[in-house]
């Protein structure tokens, strides 16, 4: 199977190389109007077909690696290091992306899948797709070359093959880990497609903005995958790592967040290009940057440049990525310099206070956030180079720098949709902003009265202050969005005599992109509520013997026993806790600690009871070695559940935005314009 997999990768590399070279030659011949006997159309078509066919050997290689995992073929080093006989079947799949070589193979397979769909649907715009296909083939060639020569997944173990493998990292043995990495990779790899279209459109000097409409679905779907991947990772961290949080500003987390920020900026600013023919250079560089950030993120976390708790997949492929990034950057700069006259703006702003200018500020904030995260991730390397000692850049830095910028972005989320395209009047501003501003200040007062104070134990507390500001902003933004919905639905209701709900449905169907976007904003606002709740997290740790009790928040936890279990994969210990509220037993929790047999690594399985107001989050930390008693750590994490609900709403909103309008949206104007 190792030979089969290696051979499949080599065939795929040859096909990708042919797709790249023949495709590039065909495009060149077509561009210079060659009349040679070698017809560019036929050559280009063979290149495209090679790109379609390469999906088969890459799929075969991925299948071969999975087959090796399922058949416990430990003669393959990768399988030896990332699987074992007792590993449950779903986690055999997870072994595919648990190491460097496997995750690169997953990357190549997803890229081949995207390429397959792109090349099969080339009739949408044959010439543009030919450029995009050739550029995508270049990226595919790089990843296949890495797999064939630098990080071969089918490398054979030298020496006597052990009877069993080293097993999968326990942190990865969790159901979400079967979904989270593929989702993240779908997003990460997916940005290759809009990048290919953008670069292709620039090189061919594509007339008009049709290429943006062609790639819009690709970009939004990719963004959705990345969003889901990031939040699934957050939920995994929350449920598995046992520290009560969901985001630790780890370099790997940062690496996934940076392209999300630039991708989000692109999704907003691209509307300026579609509707106004403006910001063309900006948009091209946004999508270039997004793709480069996906490569940079991979480089940072795989080449060992920054230390990360996600140490699943580090090796020495850094040089390959540095060279590839340099080539990509050089191609982007050259294409831009040669064709920049094609990117001149066709219109100008009619007012400084307009939807157009709000997009500019939105982009500024998103890109500043991206810079902050990139800066924080790279600063330890810089400090080591300058001062000789590595400075830690952790949560306190990001909380102080990124949170205020994030709140400003939240402010713009509310303000932007209230500003019409082209411009506005003072009366219009006053009419649109009165209700949100009232809601904002009412929330400030309500929070202060309810005890949400910006200090804790007498000291100014930045977390509490930001939470207060966030709650107030959320109220303002939510009011603004609801006002927009109700205003539009009111007009339809009056015109058609329908009830409000029918009018809301019709309004959304008529302009799915705009109102789907608003639903995404509602999701973001609800996520922010969940984030703000973290300012009021509290925890308590106690050694609990049988029938010991811990009063914690509104709950009383009673230890009613401990039990043990074992299977082929791990031994586990549970603490059983009855949870009382108002003197009545409400439910039982069973936090668990596992020890995996193959490698002796421990793993926490947190027990979580989630209600809208908070999560009761209980960790069984093990037993005190001196007393033998279980140690229980309980967290009360307010509003965490809102984050997952908000993500679901973001997902729904994006899907709505992807649905075609029931009637064509009007070109512009506050009511008819897109988000």
């Amino acid at each position, binding site marked *: 199977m190792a030979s089969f997999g290696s051979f499949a990768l080599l065939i795929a590399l040859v096909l990708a190389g042919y797709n790249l070279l023949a495709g590039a030659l065909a495009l060149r011949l077509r561009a210079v109007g060659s009349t040679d006997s070698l017809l560019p159309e036929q050559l280009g078509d063979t290149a495209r077909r090679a790109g379609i066919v390469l999906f088969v050997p890459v799929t075969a290689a991925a299948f071969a690696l999975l087959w090796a995992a399922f058949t416990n073929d430990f003669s393959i080093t990768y399988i030896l290091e990332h699987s074992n006989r007792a590993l449950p079947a779903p986690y055999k799949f997870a072994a595919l992306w648990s190491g460097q070589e496997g995750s690169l193979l997953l990357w190549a397979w997803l890229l081949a899948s995207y390429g397959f769909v792109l090349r099969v649907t080339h009739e949408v715009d044959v010439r543009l797709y030919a450029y995009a296909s050739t550029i995508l083939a270049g990226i595919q060639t790089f990843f296949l070359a890495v797999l064939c020569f630098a990080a071969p997944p089918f490398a054979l173990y030298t020496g006597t093959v052990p009877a069993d493998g080293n097993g999968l990292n326990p942190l990865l043995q969790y159901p979400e880990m079967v979904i989270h990495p593929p989702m993240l990779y779908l997003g990460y790899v997916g940005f290759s497609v809009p990048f290919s279209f953008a670069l292709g459109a620039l090189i061919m000097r594509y007339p008009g903005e049709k290429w943006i409409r062609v790639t819009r679905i690709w970009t939004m779907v990719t963004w959705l995958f990345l969003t889901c991947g990031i939040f699934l990772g957050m939920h995994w961290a929350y449920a598995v790592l046992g*520290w009560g949080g969901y985001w*630790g500003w780890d370099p790997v987390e940062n690496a996934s967040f940076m392209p999300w920020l630039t991708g989000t900026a692109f999704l907003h600013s691209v509307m300026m290009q579609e509707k106004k023919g403006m910001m063309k250079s900006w948009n091209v560089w946004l999508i270039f940057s997004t793709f480069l950030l996906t490569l940079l993120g991979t480089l940072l976390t795989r080449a060992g440049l920054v230390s990360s708790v996600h140490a699943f997949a580090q090796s020495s492929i850094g040089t390959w990525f540095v060279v590839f990034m340099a080539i990509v950057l050089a191609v982007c700069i050259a294409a831009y310099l040669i064709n920049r006259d094609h990117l*001149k703006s066709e219109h100008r702003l009619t007012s*400084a206070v307009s939807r157009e200018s709000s997009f*500019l500020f939105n982009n*500024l904030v998103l890109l500043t956030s991206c810079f902050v995260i990139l800066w924080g991730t790279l600063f330890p390397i810089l400090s080591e180079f300058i001062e000789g000692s590595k400075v830690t850049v952790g949560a*306190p830095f990001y909380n102080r720098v990124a949170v205020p910028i994030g709140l400003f972005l939240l402010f713009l989320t509310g303000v932007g949709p209230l500003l019409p395209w082209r411009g506005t009047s003072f009366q219009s501003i006053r009419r649109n902003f009165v209700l949100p501003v009232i809601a904002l200040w009412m929330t400030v007062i309500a929070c202060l009265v309810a005890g949400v104070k910006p200090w804790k134990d007498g000291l100014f*507390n930045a977390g509490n202050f930001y939470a207060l500001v966030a709650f107030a902003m959320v109220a303002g933004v939510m009011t603004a969005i609801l006002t927009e919905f109700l205003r539009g639905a009111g007009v339809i209701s009056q015109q058609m005599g329908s009830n409000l709900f029918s009018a809301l449905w019709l309004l959304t169907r008529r302009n799915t992109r705009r109102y789907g976007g608003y639903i995404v904003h509602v999701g973001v606002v609800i996520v922010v509520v969940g984030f703000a709740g973290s300012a009021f997290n509290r925890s308590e740790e106690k050694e609990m013997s049988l029938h010991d009790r811990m009063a914690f928040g509104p709950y009383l936890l009673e230890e009613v026993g401990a039990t043990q279990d074992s299977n082929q994969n791990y031994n586990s210990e549970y603490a059983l806790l009855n949870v009382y509220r108002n003197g009545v037993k409400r439910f039982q929790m069973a936090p668990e600690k596992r020890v995996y047999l193959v490698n002796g690594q421990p793993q926490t399985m947190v027990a979580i009871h989630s209600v809208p107001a908070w999560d009761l989050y209980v*960790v069984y*930390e093990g037993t005190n070695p001196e007393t033998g008693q279980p140690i229980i750590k309980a967290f009360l994490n307010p509003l965490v559940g809102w984050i997952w609900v908000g993500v679901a709403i973001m997902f729904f909103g994006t899907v709505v935005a992807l649905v075609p309008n029931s009637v064509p949206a009007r070109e512009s104007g506050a009511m008819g314009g897109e988000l």
Partner: protein
Amino acid sequence: MIRWIQIAQALTLAIAVYFSMGATGASARFENLGHRLMCTCGCAQLLGECNHVGCPESTRQRNELVSAIAAGKSDREILAWFSDKYGRSVQAAPRAEGFELIAWIAPFAVFAAGLIGTILLVRRWTRVPPSQ
């Protein structure tokens, strides 16, 4: 409009006064400093959040933090003491001095430059017709 501005000013003043009230506490300082220091066992967690049983470092470090606060040391002195003992990486964020000050200044400088640039761009785009 003026009336709205006056109302906003009054509310801002009231909130500022409300914010300025309060007292100080050792537990708040412990909480604050515990989240500005890293556990040095290699778990990459903040000292205030390190949660694994049998950690060889965090219990001792927490006790040292409690002792330092009880001894009346300032936050700056405590952070410096920890840095001297455990190395620079024990602090969870760059210091606001020397070279490390750049870490704090750069994001805001970039934001300010971007903001000025965006404002100038908006002004230019609202005045000058685009080149053909």
